[in-house]
């Protein structure tokens, strides 16, 4: 497992508490925040991230669009979808668009850390 210092994560959620919590938990990483899909896409245009964690149901641009944008703009970045609205449909949709993991809210820190770590390790392995 490589150093987490230079690994960057974009957190996209319209709920401030979730953004705050995720940034606290993942304080060892370089964290960027976006409160909706539009802002997230702007960030992706600006720079690349190792990992994007996005909510699905958000105003203006939903999480699915964020996933699509990542695949188009930063195909090397990994995507974890988190949503309180977990149905077979939403899960399959996000997976189709290229998400590597799906976390159903509320989730435990252990689940989150495992998912984040394995996603970043996969990325490192792929990117060499």
């Amino acid at each position, binding site marked *: 497992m490589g150093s987490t210092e230079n690994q960057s994560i974009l957190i996209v959620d319209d709920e401030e508490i979730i953004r705050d*919590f995720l940034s606290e*938990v993942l304080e060892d990483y370089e964290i960027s925040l976006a409160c909706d899909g539009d802002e997230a896409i702007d960030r992706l245009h600006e720079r690349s991230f190792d990992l994007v964690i996005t909510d699905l149901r958000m105003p203006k641009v939903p999480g699915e669009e964020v996933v699509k944008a990542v695949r188009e703009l930063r195909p090397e970045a990994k995507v974890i979808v988190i949503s309180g609205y977990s149905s077979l449909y939403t899960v399959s949709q996000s997976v189709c668009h290229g998400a590597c993991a799906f976390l159903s809210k509320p989730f435990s820190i252990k689940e989150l850390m495992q998912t984040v770590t394995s996603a970043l390790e996969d990325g490192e392995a792929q990117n060499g």
Partner: protein
Amino acid sequence: MTRRWFNSGIDLRLKFVLPISAIVMAAMVILSGYLIKRQAAGFYRELETNGQTLIKILAINAESGVLFESPYELDALLGTLHHFGSVEYCLIKNLEGETISHVGQNHIAAEDLQSLRDLGRATMALESGYFMDRRDRELFVLMSSITTEKKVLHRETLGMTGGVDQSLTASMVSETIGWIELGMTVGTVQKATDDATWAAVLLALLVLLATIFVVALIVNAVIKPITTLADATDKISRGDFSTTVDIDQRDEIGQLAKNFNRMTESLTQSREEIEQYNRTLEEKIIERTGQLEDAQAQLIQSEKMGAIGQLAAGVAHELNNPLGGILGYSQFTLEKMRKNIPEKTTAKEIRSYLRYVGDIELQARRCKTIVQNLLRFSRSSRTVEFDEVDVNRVMEETLTFVEHQLRISQMELEVDLGSSLPRIQGNAGQLQQIFTNLIINAMHASESGASIQINSRYCPALGEFGGTVEFSVTDTGHGIAKEDLKKIFEPFFTTKEVGKGTGLGLSVSYGIVKEHGGEITVESEIGEGTTFTVILPVQKKEPTADIDRGTSNEQRV
């Protein structure tokens, strides 16, 4: 004529008594007249016979008196006539016409009698006739000759035989020697006739009275049961079916009474059957109404469940975000506290822990509110209880369900709730259901980025008007076509695409508003948007009757 008589308004007794009395009277008059006439004729015949007999006897007995011109003998003979009350006068005359003897006074004019006297002398027979005397009394006058027998010797036989005694032959010859005239009064006959007439009139009157009495009795006997029947019919017409007629007769009227009683009995039975049927019908109606109410309640419930289903995603999201915070931060706090020894804890860390714990508390409360609202919303409407409700508060609670969905649909909510709205009598859960339906409908009708206006205001009481609270939900969506406006509150009517709406939302809302004694109106213009307005009375009144769903583009319920 007969029909007119019986159809007239005259008393039934008179209708029978008058014609029958008239017939009896006429019969009595004819019969009495005939009998009296016969009787009178008999009297006259008797008078004539008596007169004839008397004058013959007198003529025979007067022979010697006239022959010897003995007034004494004749007076004695005529003196016997005072025994005969009807003899008015009697005259005996000789051949010269001189009155030899007389009794009573003759008041008849001599010229009146002359014809009779001439006739008598001419015929030599008994003649008679009726005459009026000077006192206007009718007399029956008879005239007869008085004769004597005389031997006539035949002289031619005398010389042939020579002997007187042997040769003498004689024949008897009747010779008139005088006249007798007898006047008899007709007064007795007239008196007898008058008596008979009076007796007949009296008898007729008696018979008439008896007839009237008997006919009245008979008619009464017939009418009395008819009156009883009429009274009974009158009672029945007024609804008293217990009436029976007590007529114990074996004739047609008895049969009529029996049939009448049978009729009332069957009427009573029929009425009881009808009443029983009505009762059964009422029971059935109550039962069916109950079933309908149950079905309606189920419908409302299922619609409510449908609405809950539509909101479930949003609610879950809403609930799961704070729960994520609670779970995450509590775990995070525990982890941090496990790693850091309390003595080494810095003031900054303590502040952080306090914030974490504070957030946990805040989020926990948020969860509690959402769950509570959800529970209130899903409360069964089967036992709808009306309470004092702050409608603005109900609207605010409703908005907590839908604001997330609106945010997702990028719709702006312009909420302008009037201040100082009075509390109304209503059911918060049901009102929340209406507001949810209206807002979701507005959302479905609007394009992304549009705004939905929610307003409330109070119309204060004025006179008999107890005041209302009005809520309106306005969208700038595609609007509703005029023909659809007419059916918009009908169950299962929907313009939404398949799977998006059940077509029950507005019809259920309509029912709820009616239960609150209120009205729901819709105004819509194609391409411009729609406004639904719910008007609720401050004091709940009886549910209003359906107002004609007209053809205008404004619908009232």
